[in-house]
């Protein structure tokens, strides 16, 4: 029976959705940045696989079905950009200049540090897009031979750091302009940071979500010219 249980694609599907729902329930209760459904869901999934010594391949049978949806999810990010088109048009120059600066700083500083620490290629390529939103980061990492799993993990770490620290960073670094605060938050910590940016103010929230799309696109373009 255990054999049937583990070899069914329903196992991976049920485990992923179950742990996600658990993560969402905890988020609703705790209401803390660290209580993020992705972090909790992945942590519980990993814990179940590790504790019961279930091979990843068994989980992947069902989980792959969810994985296939990453393409459509990325396509739908277009809606977010489209909905912000008026704000984007109005503040086009500062948004573009800021996001180019942010994306370049992120990619070049990560590549330089990876080289300095002697990090291997598959990890360097995975870390390179870590400031981008997960679907874009995974695409960039994979097209450069990076491990998607490491990329997604680093994206989550960057997101949590930004989400927790954005108000402090603004104060320490003397970023007072609300537009600059929002763009900076979105540029370094994508969707997770945007949740915090919304708490900081309406302008910050809108600008942060604009930065997700614009920085993502710019990072894709820059990464075309990068070899890891």
């Amino acid at each position: 029976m255990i054999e049937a249980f583990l070899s069914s694609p329903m196992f991976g599907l049920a485990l992923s959705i179950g742990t996600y729902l658990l993560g969402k329930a905890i988020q609703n209760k705790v209401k803390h940045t660290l209580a993020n459904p992705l972090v909790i869901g992945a942590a519980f999934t990993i814990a179940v696989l590790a504790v019961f010594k279930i091979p990843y391949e068994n989980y992947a049978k069902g989980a792959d079905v969810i994985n296939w949806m990453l393409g459509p999810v990325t396509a739908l990010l277009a809606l977010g950009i489209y909905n912000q088109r008026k704000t984007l048009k109005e503040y086009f120059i500062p948004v573009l200049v800021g996001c180019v600066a942010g994306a370049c700083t992120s990619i070049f500083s990560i590549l330089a540090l990876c080289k300095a620490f002697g990090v291997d290629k598959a990890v360097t390529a995975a870390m390179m897009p870590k400031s981008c939103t997960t679907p874009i980061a995974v695409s960039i990492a994979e097209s450069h031979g990076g491990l998607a799993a490491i990329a997604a993990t680093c994206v989550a770490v960057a997101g949590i750091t930004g989400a927790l620290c954005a108000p402090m960073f603004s104060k320490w670094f003397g970023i007072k302009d609300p537009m600059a605060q929002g763009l900076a938050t979105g540029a370094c910590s994508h969707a997770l940071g945007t949740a915090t940016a919304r708490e900081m103010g309406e302008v910050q929230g809108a600008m942060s979500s604009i930065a997700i799309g614009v920085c993502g696109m710019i990072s894709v373009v820059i990464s075309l010219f990068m070899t890891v």
Partner: protein
Amino acid sequence: MSVLKQLCLIFAICLGSECISAVLPFTLPASVISMVILLLLLLVKAVKPAQLKEVSDFMLGNMALFFIPVVSGVIRYKDVLFANFWAIILICVLTTPLVFFVTGHVVQLTVRLMKKKEGKQHD
């Protein structure tokens, strides 16, 4: 559009993007191409956001779910992860504030320069 039509449209866009990605001479991820195609379709009003409402609300509203398999996949690479553990942590801790700092100041500087220029035009 019915939910099935919405799904069919999005899958068709993704399929087309994979074909485009395969023939491009450089590596542009298919998912990013599909995002650009959908954005163009929205901008030329071939598709209205309301027509994709059910599917987009579901997928974007539960976006974290779609990344649980990818992130959980890290269990396969624990050796790689532990071998580079401190480097990864240090890089994450250093670069996130750096990107915030640079982006924030560049935007503030740009806004200041633009105001200055505007002021001069008024003089």
